């Protein structure tokens, strides 16, 4: 009986799952930040000066996507 793990390169599957799963959360997070920023600008156009702060939060969220991306180099 052929063991499935021998027949399939599981590292490829692991990398795919890691990238896919790891990018969902930051994607949602950046969407929420951007959506709320646009909502704030829509309600109060003066709020458009806070784009820099919104980008800071985008960078904080983005870190986790980058961690997921960097992790694929650890999987052999």
């Amino acid at each position: 009986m052929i063991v499935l793990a021998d027949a399939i390169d599981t590292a490829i599957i692991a990398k795919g799952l890691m990238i896919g799963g790891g990018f969902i959360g930051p994607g949602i997070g950046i969407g929420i930040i951007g959506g709320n920023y646009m909502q704030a600008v829509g309600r109060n156009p003066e709020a458009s000066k806070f784009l820099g702060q919104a980008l800071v939060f985008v960078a904080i969220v983005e870190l986790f996507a980058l961690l997921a991306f960097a992790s694929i180099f650890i999987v052999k």
Partner: protein
Amino acid sequence: MFGALHSFAATSSGPTVFITPLSLFKIGNITITNSMLFGWISAVILIIFFTVIAHRLTVKPKGGLIQLVEAGADFITNLVTSSFEDKERGRKYVPYFVTLFFFILFNNWLGLLPGVGDSITYHGNPLLRAFTGDWDATAAAGVVTMGLVYGASIKAAGFKKYIKHFFIGSPLNPMYLFLGIIEMFTDLTRVVSLSIRLFLNVTIGEIVIAVFSYLGHVVAPLTATPFTLVEIFIAALQAYIFVILSVNYLAIAVNHVTHNEDLTDEDVPETMALRPEKA
């Protein structure tokens, strides 16, 4: 023009990706890596550049480059001084953060130059590597910056008051003790989060450029140029984010410890239960 820029990555064997710096040679027991070499080169470039700029500064500067540097320095100065409640206290930290901003910005941009990467090799290893694309370098920046934050807050408040500002109530209450210790750990992990954010942004940007110039093959300039432009933007954004986050950590700590009369548990009703009832 851009063909020469990107063709080095479009090899037939797939893109070569290094996420760690490679050693070039040894001086005594110290291994010199390619990122260290490029860090020294960019430091020399920065020193020469800013010495020339500083000698040319006048009230009405001529030339776009000086105005660009002045605008950047002014921007960071406003950022730092507006973060502090006490403007004069904030002005003390301005030189460090302006230096940090330009150092990270120029290292990120110099790392995108052609020739930095796989095109020039020395004993089989790439000779140059972006200085901020090395975790050791960004960790050093993070350690120095957070060391400044801790040192400045201790200097502003005294050691006892500084330790006390982690606790929202009396440390004798186990809940507040636990929360305070977690708060201390949060403060320590900022070294890692600051440095790893910068390192991963730069390194993964290089990987993305390498991958897309590989996928483009013959039309590598067309596929890789948009990502190079995005990387130029991200390099500036990451320098800004590194500075604004460290300024915020410093400002929050210093503003907190210099204003913490309300942190004693005298007026906090939740901690009353620990003490005998005042009858």
